[in-house]
């Protein structure tokens, strides 16, 4: 006798009703869906019939219908995640059918995490990706490398391609995204999956999909947190009496008869702690995110508002960041065959940046490190104030009229940070970003979908800066104030059309997609004006309504050269019974950056998979529940080089003055010879891997890959004797990245206790295998440091930009050692040395120590990176621990200015060589560095970069349902968390995580903050 079964389906993890869950009568095709409140009703033949409750991404359940009341079913997330859908570019695939290497991060992993930028969402959560924040300035970008490096061209870059809802967003612009809008992030790591993005995919592709509403259910969410940040570590620098003692010693070491600069070092005491002056121990931050999602039968929407306000921990008045976001995503099913919609994100940010965030030349950090502790922050001694240099015009003063201390010893760019802050106060940068697309989907017949998407990035950005008249020190004097305004706008777009056809016949499942795209970017227009001598003393007063004489008004501007790409692409996916899997891709790209001989490039790939656990011979067991072997090969490209690099150009600016007219005559000469054969860098990659579920609760993904880039674009620096200003770009380098990646997951429920563990580890080996004919190395992209010159070199057989310098043989302990240190000809190798100086290894065995004695000292690229997340929940409590780390690399510790003889030292100098302290590593202090103890780059400057950082620790409490139901809420959760609670490392600088062209060159990086926050999460 027919009965009606009713029930309600909820999500076990948060108790929320699940709409759209399929309820199928077992053994039939009869089925229904749950409504917005998770309720269903279905007629079944009799009590005892079985219903299958299933939802993608959740573990299906089977229940038996009884006569009596309605049933409550709580579905659990499918830990094996194999039911999950993965975004693969122009479509999705079931994770169990994916044959490429793709790592995903889902919205759930990011919920209420203290993430400001999308890069942070990936760091430590995916394998194969090396990420280091560029610096700790709030809102600053991170350096992202997917499976190593593919280029070393000087105008090329290794940044991945970001695709947000189908719109290609430039690497710098990705900061506009609000993390709570992210539904999923997919990292396409192997060529087999990247090839669909062809010529721009060699550095990897990151696809971000934002959230969309679901029919029938209105979801309102608020998440916010508030907290305080401080530096986790400051450097140990010499105090005033230590500094003076060393200065005296240095003077004596230089000239035994010298008058000592400090008569009584001990009397100076501690002196000024410049770090204390610039670091803020209570920098505030807050984040608020509010979203509404829902929809009816025909239309759905997701809209959100986000706001972040954060102060930097260094010189907070000139280091802060605000960002507001609005998003509107909606879909409208206008007819059975027509769907239209849009994804639109807007962001506005305002920031003040203190300038040099990893640079020894200026800025509060390098000044605080270098300034001598004997100079007071503020000079109050009336005797001194009445004398030079304090009587110099425009010396800056504090509120009570006392001048900021001027160091008699340390000059150049190292400036009293209090004065520096005063000259930058109020200056800010701003941006507006509108990034989004509109789409239409036509489905004329079942299985066939035509989709057309028009995407755009519209951005406006600029900055305002007032530079007051100021005497900061003898080399930083401004006698004319200036007010500078920069304005830029960008209008980029892309237009893509795809046609996809899916068919299932028997056990054969096939999907084919063909598409076409046109892209235009770098469409930038810039204007800037400078007004000098305006009637203003500070930023508040400055504006462009003061009109100085026209000679004091200058304006400039630029028009960007646009970059165009035209593409055709196709992908075929086929599987037989989800057991034998195949994907093939081909893309043809044309780029405006290449000459006629090579305008177009072809990028094919294929990948195969086999799921033996689906074979009949594989008996079902509890050890290996699922196993898939996959592998593929593909070719991708990179066109991230200058425009017109293939062409010979002549340049102006080679001017000279004739006669007494006092003006330049304009001269022109060739910039560089041409190379019409310039073509794409090509990256060929082979990947082999497997995915598995074992012992029901463990998931495992393993990959090994070999990636070879051929024809790396280079501008081989020609010898100077040729006199040419530059070389044409040529395809002459090869580079290899090999690696291994492992992702491991575990999830289990023990009664009321839920445990989830996710870990990943990646190993990477990068090696340059070929350079221009006859070249063993290049230094085009080399990092340099003050008087040392280049400190890195890219050489065959070594990794990209390896450190390159002198080996040392310790310290000369006495004159006899110096005298006996001779070359084969008996010549003294270091005639200028004195006891206490560094003994450099004579590697080439000739009669002198010079450049040819240098060697490779280690790589700045981390050999391994890893991450670990542990989620725990018990009753109403939840707890997250998330940490990540990297290691196997070297960091160049360049915190002391070598060209500022009298700059302060770190306390390790207290262990320097003296006749009574025969150090073997730290040379004596001396004013004239004739032996080049400091200016020869040696291993003394290199330190191990290994670190592990506990990035997030979060403890949450869900207020019980019966309490919150009174206010109609579904969920009220309060939490406390910390960010960057501790870092385990032996590195002696501020922060071992250093992004940039080369990881691991520390010139006084703005360190990342340690924060403590409290938060609230409310859902209706």
């Amino acid at each position, binding site marked *: 006798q027919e009965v009606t079964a009713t029930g309600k389906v909820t999500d076990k993890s948060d108790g929320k009703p699940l709409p759209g869950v399929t309820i199928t009568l077992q053994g039939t095709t009869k089925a229904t869906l749950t409504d917005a409140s998770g309720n269903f009703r279905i007629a079944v033949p009799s009590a005892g019939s079985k219903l299958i409750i299933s939802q993608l991404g959740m573990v299906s359940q089977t229940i038996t219908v009884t006569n009596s009341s309605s049933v409550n079913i709580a579905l659990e997330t499918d830990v094996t995640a194999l039911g999950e859908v993965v975004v693969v570019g122009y479509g999705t695939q079931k994770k169990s059918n994916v044959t490429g290497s793709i790592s995903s991060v889902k919205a759930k992993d990011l919920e209420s995490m203290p993430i400001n930028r999308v890069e942070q969402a990936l760091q430590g959560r995916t394998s194969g990706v090396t990420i280091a924040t560029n610096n700790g300035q709030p809102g600053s970008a991170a350096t992202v490398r997917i499976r190593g490096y593919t280029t070393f061209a000087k105008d090329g870059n290794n940044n991945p391609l970001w695709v947000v809802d189908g719109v290609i967003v430039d690497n710098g612009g990705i900061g506009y995204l609000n993390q709570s809008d992210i539904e999923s992030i997919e990292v396409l790591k192997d060529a087999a999956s990247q090839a669909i993005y062809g010529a721009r995919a060699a550095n990897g592709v990151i696809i971000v999909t934002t959230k969309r509403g679901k029919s029938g259910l209105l979801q309102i969410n608020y998440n916010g947190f508030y907290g305080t940040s401080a530096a986790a570590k400051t450097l140990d620098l010499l105090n005033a009496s230590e500094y003076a003692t060393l200065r005296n010693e240095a003077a004596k070491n230089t000239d035994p008869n010298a008058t000592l600069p400090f008569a009584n070092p001990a009397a100076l005491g501690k002196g000024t702690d410049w770090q204390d002056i610039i670091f803020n121990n209570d920098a505030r931050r807050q984040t608020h995110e509010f979203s509404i999602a829902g929809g009816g039968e025909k239309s759905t929407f997701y809209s959100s508002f986000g706001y972040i306000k954060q102060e930097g921990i260094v010189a907070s008045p000139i280091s802060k960041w605000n960002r507001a976001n609005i998003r509107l995503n909606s879909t409208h099913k206008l007819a059975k065959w027509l769907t239209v919609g849009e994804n639109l994100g807007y962001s506005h940010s305002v920031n003040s940046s203190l300038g040099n965030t990893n640079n020894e030349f200026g800025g509060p950090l390098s000044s605080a490190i270098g300034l001598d502790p004997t100079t007071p922050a503020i000079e109050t001694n009336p005797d001194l104030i009445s004398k030079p240099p304090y009587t110099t015009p425009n010396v800056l003063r504090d509120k009570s009229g006392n001048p900021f201390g001027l160091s008699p010893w340390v000059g150049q760019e190292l400036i009293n940070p209090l004065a520096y802050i005063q000259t930058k106060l109020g200056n800010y940068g701003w941006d507006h970003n509108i990034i989004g697309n509109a789409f239409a989907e036509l489905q004329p017949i079942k299985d066939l979908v035509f989709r057309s998407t028009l995407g755009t990035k519209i951005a406006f950005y600029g900055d305002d800066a007032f530079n007051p008249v100021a005497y900061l020190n*003898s080399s930083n004097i401004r006698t004319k104030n200036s007010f500078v305004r920069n304005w830029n706008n960008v209008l980029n777009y892309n237009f893509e059309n795809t046609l996809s056809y899916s068919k299932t016949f028997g056990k054969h499942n096939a999907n084919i997609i063909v598409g076409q795209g046109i892209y235009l970017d770098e469409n930038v227009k810039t204007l800037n004006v400078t007004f000098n001598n305006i009637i203003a003393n500070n930023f508040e007063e400055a504006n462009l309504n003061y009109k100085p004489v026209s000679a004091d008004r200058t304006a400039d501007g630029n028009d960007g050269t646009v970059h165009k790409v035209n593409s055709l692409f196709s992908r075929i996916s086929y599987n037989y019974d989800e057991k034998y899997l195949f994907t093939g891709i081909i893309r043809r790209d*044309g780029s405006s950056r290449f000459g006629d001989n090579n305008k177009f490039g072809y990028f094919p790939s294929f990948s195969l998979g086999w799921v033996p656990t689906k074979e009949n011979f594989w008996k079902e067991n509890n050890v290996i529940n699922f196993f898939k072997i996959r592998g593929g090969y593909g070719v991708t490209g990179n066109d991230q080089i200058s425009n017109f690099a293939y*062409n010979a150009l002549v340049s102006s600016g080679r001017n000279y003055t004739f006669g*007494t*007219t006092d003006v330049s005559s304009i001269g022109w000469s060739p910039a560089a010879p041409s190379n019409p054969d310039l073509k794409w860098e090509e990256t060929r990659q082979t990947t082999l891997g497997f995915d598995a579920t074992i012992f029901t609760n463990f998931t495992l993904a393993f990959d090994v890959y070999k990636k070879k880039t051929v024809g790396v674009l280079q501008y081989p620096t020609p*010898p100077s004797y040729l006199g040419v200003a530059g070389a044409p770009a040529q395809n002459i380098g090869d580079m290899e990245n090999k690696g291994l990646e492992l992702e491991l997951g575990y999830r289990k429920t023990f009664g009321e206790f839920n445990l989830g563990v996710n870990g990943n580890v990646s190993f990477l080996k990068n090696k340059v295998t070929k350079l221009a004919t006859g070249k063993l190395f290049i230094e085009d992209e080399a990092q340099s440091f003050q008087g040392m010159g280049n400190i890195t070199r890219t050489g065959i057989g070594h990794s990209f930009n390896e450190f390159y310098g002198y080996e040392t043989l310790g310290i000369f302990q006495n004159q006899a050692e110096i005298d006996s240190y001779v070359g084969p000809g008996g010549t003294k190798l270091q005639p200028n040395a004195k006891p206490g100086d560094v003994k450099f290894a004579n590697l080439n065995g000739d009669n002198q120590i010079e450049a040819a004695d240098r060697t490779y000292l280690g790589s700045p690229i981390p050999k391994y990176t890893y991450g670990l997340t542990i989620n725990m929940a018990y009753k109403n409590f939840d707890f997250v621990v998330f940490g990540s780390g990297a290691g196997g690399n070297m960091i160049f510790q360049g915190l002391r200015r070598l060209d500022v003889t009298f700059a302060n030292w770190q306390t390790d100098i207290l262990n320097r060589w003296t006749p009574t302290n025969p150090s073997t590593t730290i040379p004596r202090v001396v004013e004239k560095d004739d032996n080049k103890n400091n200016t020869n780059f040696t291993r003394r400057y290199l330190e191990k970069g290994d670190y592990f950082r506990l990035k997030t620790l979060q403890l949450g409490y869900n207020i019980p349902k019966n309490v919150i139901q009174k206010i109609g809420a579904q969920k009220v959760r309060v939490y406390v968390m910390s960010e960057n609670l501790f870092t385990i490392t032996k590195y002696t600088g501020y922060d071992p995580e250093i992004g940039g062209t080369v990881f691991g060159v520390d010139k006084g990086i703005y360190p990342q903050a340690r924060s403590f926050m409290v938060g609230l999460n409310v859902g209706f």
Partner: protein
Amino acid sequence: CKKDLDVNPRERILESNYYKTPEQAFSSLISVYDQFGNQSGGYLTKLNIFSSGSDDHYAGGDSPSDLGDLQAMNNYTVSSLSGAPSYLWGKGFTGVYRANIFLQKVEEIQMDASTKNRYIAEAKALRAIFYFDLVRIFKNIPLILKPVETSDWYNVLQVPPADVYKQIELDLKEAIPNLPLTVPRNTEGGRLTQGAAHAVLGKVYLWQEKFADAATEFADVNGPSPGTTPSKYGYVLMSKFEDLYKLANKFNSESILEISYNSTSNMGWGNVGSGEGNVAGIMSGPRNYNILIPDKAPDYVSGWSVMPFTKEFFALIHFDPRNKPTVANLDSLEKAGIVTYKHANDNTGYFVEKYAGRVSTKANSGQLELNFPYNLYEIRLADTYLMEAEAVLKSGGAVGAGSRAYAALNAVRARVGLKPVDVTMDNIIKERRIELAAEGQRWFDLVRWGLAPAKLAFKGFVAGKNETLPIPNGELNNTKIVQSKEWGGTK
């Protein structure tokens, strides 16, 4: 489809569309002159490099580590990795390349034949000047006379110095007939003339110790009666020594070859060396210059105290009439309580006056202190007078009272009111040192006379090594260039 990928090249001018018009020929020629006045992005100039190496000056600067490339010249720790060799090498060969490309391309340009011939002559004379510096400074250099094909970039070889000198002489001799005798000062001052080319040729002979040939060239430049009537190029000594250094007197009657600068190219900190402002103005100024008594104090700008004179040099010039126009005596100004300044590295209190940056000569645009319009003398008449006297003396010519050599030497002295002296090497050496102080001649003179090891020993000069600079290390990498044996190589 291809056409859709065309983009507007904006300001870029393709080489294939260039070198078509007479104007473009001229612009190309200007790019050769540009290298003659070139200053490095790191504030290096031929003047401050060799002044730092001489016994007239110290490198100076704020501290012993400030402007390290000049300190390395000062204390003879210069190496193949130092900035000075690399800058000078690049400056010279870039000039050579620009001359070569000009000479290659100008052939195809349709234009008036005599103008074209003049341009070609200027380019050849400039190429000779670049090679003269290169061969003097580095000795073992390649001789490149047309742009090198890409395939041969790494196959270029060095040649014996004698071959380079031969080419220099050839270029100058080919240039002379097509150069103008004189040029209009206001519009073309600074462009090569016959007189300038003869003067350079004379100096080239002098360096090769071809004294008789040198004397002939200088006689041509100096005219029939040195010190009295203008030569056929209009050269005659300025009546007042101090007028040589006034901005209003650019390209005066004594100027033969002058490096010119201006105040309007808007050079800033970010593009030092790319414009036409003279950085010597700010560099040589006293550091932290601070005026106590405004009426009495000169209006120097606060500078970087580079190139302070040595005490030994000051003692020599102290009671010479040329002292005041040559030396900015901060020591006495400070002692008189008129000014204060920072006693920076190797301070003596004696700075360069000849082109000291002043508030009154500061530029009006750009980074003001980087855009001083002072010109610098490469060769002036007093110099060729003294060189003629030297050439005649060494070639055994007449040097007694009434001779040309005697007249030339003593015209220089008479101009500042000094009594005549005999033409002896000692007198010439002393006269050149004082007359041409801070004009970049001293170091080259000492090397030419073989006196450098003795005079510069106190700075660390090593005989048989420091007469040249090492070939920059970067030039040896991946090329067939070999380091000079004085610098550890085999050449």
